[in-house]
Structures are given as C-alpha cells and as structure tokens.
C-alpha cells in the first residue's frame, strides 16, 4: 500500500517549529546591544525556548528549569555584547550558557546531598541523577542530534549521554561506568567527533 505523503506515517520526524529562522535570532540579539530594553522582547521569544529546553533536559524539574531559564535570559541581555555571530549561532550561545548553569545546579544539588548523606547509613545512599536509557530516549525526542546518536558505538553513546544528562565530569563518568579514565575520555572525544561529522557542523 502506498504511503500518502500528506498523511501521518509511522515514524514521524519531529521538526522543531520554524517560527523564527535562526539567523533572525542572531540579528535580534545583535540589535539589542546598547539598545532599549524593549528590544529584548523578540530576543526572548526566539531564544528562551532554547534555554528552557536545555534546562528541562538536564534538570528534569520544570520549576528549576524555569528558574535557570530566567537567570540565563537575563545573562543573555547583560552580556549580549559578547555574542559573536562569527563564532556561533545565537541558539548555540544560549544553549551553552543554559547548560552551564543547569549543570552547576545539578552539581550543587549533588554536593548538598553528599553532605547530607554522610550522616546516614552509606548503604541507603542513592545517586540523585541517574541517567535512565528510556528517559533519555524521551528527552531526545525532537533533538537534532538524535538520528546521529545511532552512528556512535554503544560505549561512546553511553559515555556522551552520561556526561550530557548526568552533568558529570568524565572522571565521574569513568567511575560510574567502572571504565578507565583514558578510555572514557576517548569515548567522549570520538563520540562527539562522530556527532560533529554526522551533524555537518564543521566550519570549513
């Protein structure tokens, strides 16, 4: 039976809504430098979904993600002059800022739990930020990187996903996976390298 191209098909590819072309976000961000705060409205509308999406992905808690989004978007306004469109898209710039703050939160929370946990029986200790495979699948739904993750080996994928969603350093990833440090470092390096090639983000 022929597939109706206009109808729904089994494996619908979810494409991010093209409400704002990426380059117009760049232009809006550049335009708000030294301008009236009112010019930040379009910047917020174009980029806050990136900050929130990243924060939800890493933190999972919508309230925490909303707080991080607020911090990030104020930072975007404050430091807009440092955005360099020759180096990155506004989307990448905001995603980077958001991930850094979200990861800082994960680590602060982990440190707090570690402290609290010291008084308790060590056997009851549970890691707060376990990365569960099915959960990752769900979180990646609609992400540009998803189709490319299949080009990674299982161990590369595991290391990259642990580092990304667990907010862990590669040392912590190595401890967690019971793998040697250089091994995990290579997996992350080779994994991101493959993703880079698959995504075609190379700057020629």
């Amino acid at each position: 039976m022929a597939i109706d191209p206009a109808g729904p098909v089994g494996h619908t590819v979810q494409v991010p809504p093209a409400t704002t072309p990426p380059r117009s976000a760049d232009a809006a961000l550049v335009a708000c430098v030294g301008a009236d705060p009112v010019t930040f409205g379009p910047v917020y509308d174009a980029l806050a979904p990136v900050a929130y999406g990243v924060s939800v992905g890493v933190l999972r808690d919508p309230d925490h993600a909303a707080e991080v989004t607020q911090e990030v978007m104020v930072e975007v306004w404050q430091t807009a002059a440092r955005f360099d469109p020759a180096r990155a898209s506004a989307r990448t710039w905001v995603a980077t800022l958001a991930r850094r703050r979200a990861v800082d939160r994960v680590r602060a929370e982990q440190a707090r739990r570690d402290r609290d946990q010291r008084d308790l029986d060590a056997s009851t200790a549970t890691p707060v930020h376990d990365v569960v495979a099915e959960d990752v699948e769900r979180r990646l739904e609609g992400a540009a990187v998803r189709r490319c993750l299949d080009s990674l080996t299982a161990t590369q994928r595991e290391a990259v996903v642990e580092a990304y969603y667990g907010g862990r350093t590669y040392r912590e990833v190595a401890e967690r996976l019971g793998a040697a440090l250089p091994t995990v470092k290579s997996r992350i390096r080779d994994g991101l390298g493959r993703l880079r090639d698959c995504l075609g983000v190379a700057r020629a």
Partner: protein
Amino acid sequence: MPDDDTTRDAWDLLPAYALDAVDDLERRAVERLLESDPDARRALDEYLDVVAAFAVEQEPPAHVRDAVLARVARTPQAAARGTTTGVSATPAARPRRRWGLVAAAAAAVVAVAVPTTIAVQEHRETVRLEAQADRVAQMLADPDARLVTSPVEGGGEATALVSGDDVLVSAEGMPAPGEGHDWQLWVVADGAPVSAGLMPAASGGVSRALVEGGAGHVVAVTLEPAGGSDQPTTDPVVAIES
C-alpha cells in the same frame, strides 16, 4: 589531581570541555590553549554546536517572560570586554576561571594556623597567574598577614586573611545557598555596602574569594537571589571586621 601533561592533552579535552565535563585544572589548561590557538577555538565552536544539538526547544511558562523582561528593564548591559564592576555583569565562564585560579593558589590557607608560617606551594600554574591570583600568592606569603575568624549564622566558619589592602575570605562548612540563591560578598565602608561578587561554589566544603580593597572595612556575606543583588536584601550571616 591532573596529570603533568594536562596542558599537552588540552586538545584532547576539548570535547569534554564542551560538555562541561572537565575539572577546574583541566578547564584552565583548555582555556590557556583556547587563548593562544584559533584552531582550537574553532574546534571548540564545532563541539559546542554538537552539544547544542541535544537541545529540544520548549516554550517556558509565561511567568518567566514577565520576570525576565522586568529584570531586563532595570539591568544595565555589560561592555563587550574588560572592566565590569558587579559580578552580575560578568559571564559565568569568567568568574569560574578566575575563582579556579584563586582556589588553587589559596589551597594552602587551610593548612596553616599561624600566618607567619604560611608557605606558598610552588605551583606550576602560578607562573601564568593573572594579577589577581598573583595577589593571593603574595597574601599567602605575607608574614604580616592577619587571620580573623568568625562563626557563620546557620553553620560554618568564615576566615579572613588580611594582607595589605586585600582580604581573602574562606568559608568552611557553610550551607549551600539553595535553589535560586547565591551567597554574596559585600564590603561595607562607612555603612554603605558595595558588592564584592558572589561566593564561588564550595569545593570540598570550602569556598574562597578574594576581596580586593576590603582591608580595614567590614566584609559581610548575605543570601541573595541567584546572580546577586545591587544592594543586600537580607541580613548578613557573617560580618568580619578586617
């Protein structure tokens, strides 16, 4: 601890750096590479694009927009580069790097009880230290430095190492500021508090910050909304007469 060849391996660490999956010493090694090598910069930009490709855009709750635009309306923008006064105007990456340097240089402070016996460990990093970390090393080596200690309300202890015009604040065992908050430092001169930036996140239970020009004044810490405030909004948990 970092390997001796951390700097040489900095290229190898670029992907982990893009994922924020390196420790402080490695971060510094990578950032030194990035400052001197445009090819590394370009490679990092590609990895950052890869990391950003994990993002799935999602509309934040409507109240966030109102809150952000309200804060934007009363928040000045930072200059492209160079001198910034408030910590709030400094992007996240920079204080981290700065405090990382400070923390490495300041590590000796907890090991000493008497200031005159302070010995600075010769650290490879100090060779390339920025002015601020140089200052910390000087302070640690200063035989005339004074130590002032005070308990922190709510738990922990704060120590001020006073040398010349500057104060190195170490807070040990302080509770985390909690979600959406930061500990912020103030220099109170003639009753007027001036922000001296945020306390960096504690590492190993100790958080340290250099307060330049703080000597002879009261150095205080308050709990503030994340990112800090222009003026204190709560009472200090500790105030040290330096």
